[in-house]
């Protein structure tokens, strides 16, 4: 090569050029794909909510409804039944779908007096009502989130879906798997005297078939203690925020 690659000036020019080229390449990719990615995320959220209601792929009950049918089925089962709950009062609005639990969490962190907006989706399937509550928490490495649907007495979990950003594959990542989340179905979130308990992911629970529905606990995953504790905290806190509103509905 005709030039000296060891010179300081060359090094600096190379570094600057590299940053500009790579930076614009990434910015271009990100901005040209943004709309598609946002649409995919929207579809995924619809699929998640439907899944927590037990609306799944007709062939495999452990799969989401197909992406191309998500909008249609969402309109059918949830439709306009979307609410924003603030301070125990609900307002019916489709904006509920666009509320991100993460952003609400951030706002509360910045301003402790902020009145959190809680999105709530009420689905109807075969004459039964499903109160779907979105939630978000922390696993071992990164964020975890989920959707839990409750019956109209706000006592029993009717369905659940959990997902994660970066839990360990084969261990914490298994919160996504059917054998973990299905244990939540039928589990009670209240203790015998009717006080709110949430659901604990418990080591040594010894109830693999989940026959004890009233112990407010499900079996933990081996090798995923922190992720399990994260799910416990997320479910407990996530549903608790809705309790004041549920109390008014019960009356």
């Amino acid at each position, binding site marked *: 090569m005709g030039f000296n690659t*060891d010179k300081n000036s060359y090094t600096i020019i190379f570094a600057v050029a590299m940053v500009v080229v790579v930076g614009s390449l990434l910015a271009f990719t990100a901005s040209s794909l943004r709309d598609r990615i946002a649409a995919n995320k929207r579809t995924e959220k619809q699929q998640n909510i439907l899944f927590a209601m037990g609306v799944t792929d007709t062939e495999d009950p452990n799969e989401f409804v197909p992406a191309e049918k998500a909008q249609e089925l969402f309109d059918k089962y949830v439709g306009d039944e979307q609410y924003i709950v603030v301070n125990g009062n609900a307002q019916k609005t489709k904006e509920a779908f666009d509320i991100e639990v993460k952003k609400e969490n951030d706002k509360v962190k910045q301003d402790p007096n902020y009145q959190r907006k809680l999105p709530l989706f009420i689905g109807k399937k075969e004459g039964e009502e499903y109160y779907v509550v979105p939630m978000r928490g922390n696993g071992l490495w990164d964020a975890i989130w989920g959707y839990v649907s409750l019956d109209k007495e706000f006592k029993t979990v009717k369905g659940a879906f959990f997902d994660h950003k970066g839990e360990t594959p084969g261990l914490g990542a298994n919160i996504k798997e059917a054998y973990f989340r299905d244990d939540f179905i039928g589990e009670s979130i209240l203790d015998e005297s009717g006080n709110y308990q949430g659901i604990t992911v418990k080591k040594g629970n010894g109830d693999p078939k989940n026959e004890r529905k009233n112990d407010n606990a499900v079996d933990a995953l081996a090798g995923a203690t922190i992720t399990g504790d994260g799910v416990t905290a997320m479910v407990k806190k996530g549903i608790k925020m809705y309790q004041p509103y549920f109390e008014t509905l019960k009356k």
Partner: protein
Amino acid sequence: MAEVTEEQVKVKEPKEPLFSKKNRKLLTDPLADNNPITIQVLGICSALAITAQLKPSIVMAISVIFVMGVGNIVISLMRNIIPSKIRIIVQLVVVAALVIIVDQVLKAFAYTLSKELSVFIGLIITNCIIMGRFEAFALGNGPWKSFLDGIGNAAGYGVLLIIVAFFRELLGSGTLFGVKVLGDPIEKTGLYAIGYENNGFMVLAPMALITVGIIIWIQRSRNKALIEDH
């Protein structure tokens, strides 16, 4: 006495065929006798993290093969213009940019697949095999050779991941690809009916290290040439 022109001094090298013996060795050596994990001891960290089950191991293997192949070509094409003082940074930028672009494209066009891969994206960037091969090979060799070297090393890494994951999933969870091959531990069927228990220890990361250790032991006892003198 004729003047010796430069042309005549240059020894004409015969053009190497694409799959010459040397090139094939680049591809096959890392699979066994120069395996990145057992011999070069690169990429152990991700091998520990994701080998609890077979499926993620295979996904990881494919992702690394792709990133290594393309990354090695890019670095090899740039090898004469990269300033040596910041070469490691340049390598990092190349692999990070590559991985992010792949991630974004998958998110837009194959969303379900990208969900499956999400965890690995970060792990690929930190995989020392990639940086190791950029530094040791691609910086000093042509694109085609570098491509073969990248594919070979990534495949060698993948093969080992799959072997480790096979034993860890089988002994730790009693499943392969999530299928209960040893019977049902809850219903007590198959092997479990006669008192077999899953070894929960196999699910934890330290057992991956021990499994890799056993593989290294077997490999070196079969091929004494691999044993280093100390």
